């Protein structure tokens, strides 16, 4: 979509006005600074998704829209999670982070902050693997998606 003030609120407004659900939404300017790329995750029947797509296309600032589920694609989400890490837990959490290919990016004597990237379900799995009471804070970006191989979304 055009990288213009207000474009994002048109998308968000459309979803709330028509009763569609936004599971997650991530957006940032592209290599062409006049364009922003948004990955939006929504859940609905084929008919609903078709309507969502058509309605989004009607927004003047939306340049092009694809349904990544129409082909092979890759999805990644970034999560930062701050966990309590004292005593024997410190080792255990560090190991767990390694298993999930996360990295510890901030350390205090009581906590770790772990950076983790993957599909949304991988991030969910990590949170399930550590004890719930140990999780102090999480922040997630929502999924970003891209088509595999030669499947390219370009204006």
């Amino acid at each position, binding site marked *: 979509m055009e990288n213009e003030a207000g474009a994002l609120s048109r998308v968000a407004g459309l979803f709330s*006005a028509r009763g569609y659900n936004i599971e997650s939404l991530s957006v940032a300017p592209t290599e062409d600074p006049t364009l922003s790329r948004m990955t939006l995750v929504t859940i609905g029947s084929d008919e609903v998704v078709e*309507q969502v797509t058509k309605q989004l296309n009607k927004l*003047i600032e939306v340049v092009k829209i694809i349904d990544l589920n129409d082909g092979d694609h890759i999805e990644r989400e970034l999560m930062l999670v701050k966990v309590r890490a004292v005593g024997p837990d410190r080792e255990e959490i560090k190991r767990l982070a390694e298993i999930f290919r996360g990295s510890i990016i901030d350390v205090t004597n009581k906590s770790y902050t772990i950076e983790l990237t993957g599909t949304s379900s991988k991030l969910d799995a990590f949170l399930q693997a550590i004890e719930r009471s140990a999780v102090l804070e999480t922040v997630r970006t929502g999924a970003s998606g891209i088509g595999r191989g030669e499947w390219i979304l370009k204006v």
Partner: protein
Amino acid sequence: MSAELTGAEITIRCLQEEGVQCIFGYPGGAVLFIYDELFKQDKVRHILVRHEQAAIHAADGYARSSNKVGVALVTSGPGVTNAVTGIATAYMDSIPMVVISGQVPTSAIGLDAFQEVDTVGITRPCVKHNFLVKDIAELAVTIKKAFYIASTGRPGPVLVDIPKDVTQQKTKFVYPDKVSMRSYNPVTKGHARQIKKAAELILSAKRPMVYAGGGVILSDAAPQLTELTQMLNFPCTNTLMGLGGYPATDKQSLGMLGMHGTYEANMAMQYCDVLIAVGARFDDRVIGNPKHFFNENRKIIHIDIDPSSISKRVKVDVPIVGDVLDVLKELIKLLKAEKEKPDQAALKEWWKQIELWRERDCLKFDRSSKIIKPQMVIEKLFNVTKGDAFITSDVGQHQMWAAQFYKFDKPRRWINSGGLGTMGFGMPAAMGVQLANPKGKVACITGEASIQMCIQELSTCKQYRLPLKIVNLNNRYMGMVRQWQEFFHGNRYAESYMNALPDFVKLAESYGHVGMKIEKPEDVEDALKEAFKLKDQLVFMDFITDQTENVFPMVPGGKGLSEMILV
């Protein structure tokens, strides 16, 4: 090098470049520089309304009756919020319109300044697009874009919000010849293969039906719709927004369909085997319960310029995205070249069935009544004007009777708020119609409840000598509310009685207009004739009508098309 112009000058110059002859508005702090420039020129005529809602409705009526872009100018804050009802009305009915609004200076935006609202935010869900112009270098191109977006594709209102300081700044004025936007390229031509499929389906039809909506009017395709329908000898029904798209006095017309549609139109809609939907959107007031609609099998061809209107409420078999006019032309060409014809014996049987439905005479009413029947007033109005008037309406029972009993043979003659259902629309819209058609006969069919929602415009009509004929069907009730309360709420008429009504005759006279009160059926025709003889005067006709009259047929909410309540 050409001299630099202020933002205010540029705004007016843009309107001139677009060929705008008439705008509707109301001044205020944020638009004072623009008004100053309006004052200094005479190409663009400004009509001063008495409330911003009326400015938008008037621009709307102007657009609907002329197929030009309607233009309105309002100030920031309350100017805009008053305009919102009008903008939403135009949006729901896809009316091309550009609204220019003033905004507080850029330095004051976000600081809760006097008369500040988030105009772009407030209007976002009810415009096709809107802009806030923060940089004067963008002003001319933005206004160009606004006109382009408003009038192409599925039309709609576009708002341009201009902060006061931008109207004072100066820059060189260049009005672009055209704009191209990578993110906005509306389709006009229909897909050839889809049109071919449609033609094949049409030729296979045994019980065909043409269902035509407001898109036919908006794309000026009434002649093509008529040609197609008549060359095939198919029955045709029009939606509330589509009236006039096919001549209502023609025998192939089944009248309006939907909640208050005719028995024959609704039955034919339900039991046809091939449905040709043209510029219509299968909304809840048209097909009722979609589940019930699909109790019967039929193939559907759907022509619409807006892809999101297709398969929204009803799954269709042959979607054709494109401008109705282009697609109909192609379709006619294809069918003319075709040697085959639809099964004529089956078509004859189908017409026989339709005639049986028609014999039900679903629009009958008591013609010998000693109290004025509202339907009779509209019939007489049709006769007196020879069916050649521009009719605007407000919203409620009178609107439905107008749609049922005034037979529109031409497009752009029936102007009403179909989608949003805005009471108060009728009179200001009629002002716009009269200004776009100075020689036209313009009548506003209204009720004593609706008319009071924009009654202040009697003053505007006086100022500009707009000789509207107001047909007030006065039943001392919000009639449609009362009807629903009678049918569905145990006759408990909660707050639907109109008490403390003004003396409309005196009210009209106090504005310098002519007022008439008509209480007997035998006086109706003479009153109408006299009113239309007063060519230069607004005449307010207060018809005291039967309080208990209901609109029939009626498909109750949530019911199917064949489940009508009949007289």
